[in-house]
């Protein structure tokens, strides 16, 4: 089990190009779909925790998913799996830095990968929307938050706090009165 976790997260680490968000669809595919280690909703919670904690999102989500699957040892194994591919790659590059610098093939490969990263991010969004059966209210809120972040460049952490606080207040004040649970 631990070995399988390590391999899975090694794979996730190895194919996470262009920063943390690119790994969201890959984690989704491996951890939720393929191995059923966590559910779609739990996955979304994982991403929100990873987002609102300091540090790289990829590392944060590996730690959290690791805990969920197998406690502290699971967290260690998943983290190691995630960072090992980049550690090895960068070490090699640091050693042979000058040969890599102006490699034409390298450049071309990444011209192709960059738009694919965008595609993967939006397919993750599509999947979360489709699979989690979110209502129109949630969706329009998500859309508004996207626009706020893109255009006003407000730190994500404030939006997370606002969302959490708003929801607690809403449920405490509104829902408690008529006792209808969602």
């Amino acid at each position, binding site marked *: 089990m631990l070995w399988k976790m390590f391999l899975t997260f090694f794979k996730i680490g190895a194919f996470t190009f262009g*920063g943390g*968000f690119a790994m969201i669809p890959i984690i989704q595919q491996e951890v939720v779909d393929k191995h059923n280690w966590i559910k779609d909703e739990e996955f979304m919670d994982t991403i929100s925790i990873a987002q609102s904690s300091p*540090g790289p999102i990829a*590392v944060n989500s590996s730690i959290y998913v690791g805990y969920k699957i197998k406690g502290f040892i699971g967290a260690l194994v998943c983290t190691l799996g995630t960072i090992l591919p*980049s550690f090895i790659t960068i070490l090699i590059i640091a050693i042979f830095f000058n040969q890599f610098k102006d490699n034409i093939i390298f450049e071309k490969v990444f011209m192709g990968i960059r738009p694919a990263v965008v595609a993967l991010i939006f*397919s993750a969004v599509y999947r979360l929307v489709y699979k989690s059966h979110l209502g129109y209210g949630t969706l329009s809120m*998500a859309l508004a938050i996207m626009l706020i972040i893109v255009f006003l460049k407000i730190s994500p952490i404030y939006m*997370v706090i606002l969302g959490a606080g708003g929801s607690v207040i809403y449920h405490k004040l509104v829902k408690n009165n008529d006792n209808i649970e969602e």
Partner: protein
Amino acid sequence: MIKFFQLFLSFFKVGAFSFGGGYAMLPLLEEEVIKTHSWMSGAEFIDIFAISEMTPGPIAVNAATFVGYKVAGFLGAMVATLAVILPSFIVISLIYTFISKFKNSPYVDWIFKGIRPVVLGLIAAAGVTVAKTSFMDIKSIIIGAGIFYLVSFKKLNPILGIVGAGILGILLY
């Protein structure tokens, strides 16, 4: 020895104070690596950024490994990399313990319900940001649209999508 200690401290700081991942930590990294310790020049810093864009893994981890190696060889790379992920490990451990303890509290449930639309918005916003620098011609838009279709509707494995897009890059550019 002092070198290792400085590396550890600097990257621990970078790990601890970079919220929102990736690009959010660049200013802090710049301050530690260029201004405070002069471990790199400005040009080298841009190179490491470009390398991180092109190699797998979180940029914070990549930068830590690269700078650590430059400053103090293999051991330096290890120290810096461990230092940058240690804050994450501590914070996530605390959060996990807290959430497991209060799992049945309605508050935890409410908090997550409130955060979900935010997360969705954040991911979409990241997609828009990346799209701005990735879609520069018709070819890249076609690659992007094609991969989106295949991954979302035809269940193409995302990893295969990345590999395929890399090959398309060689063929088309």
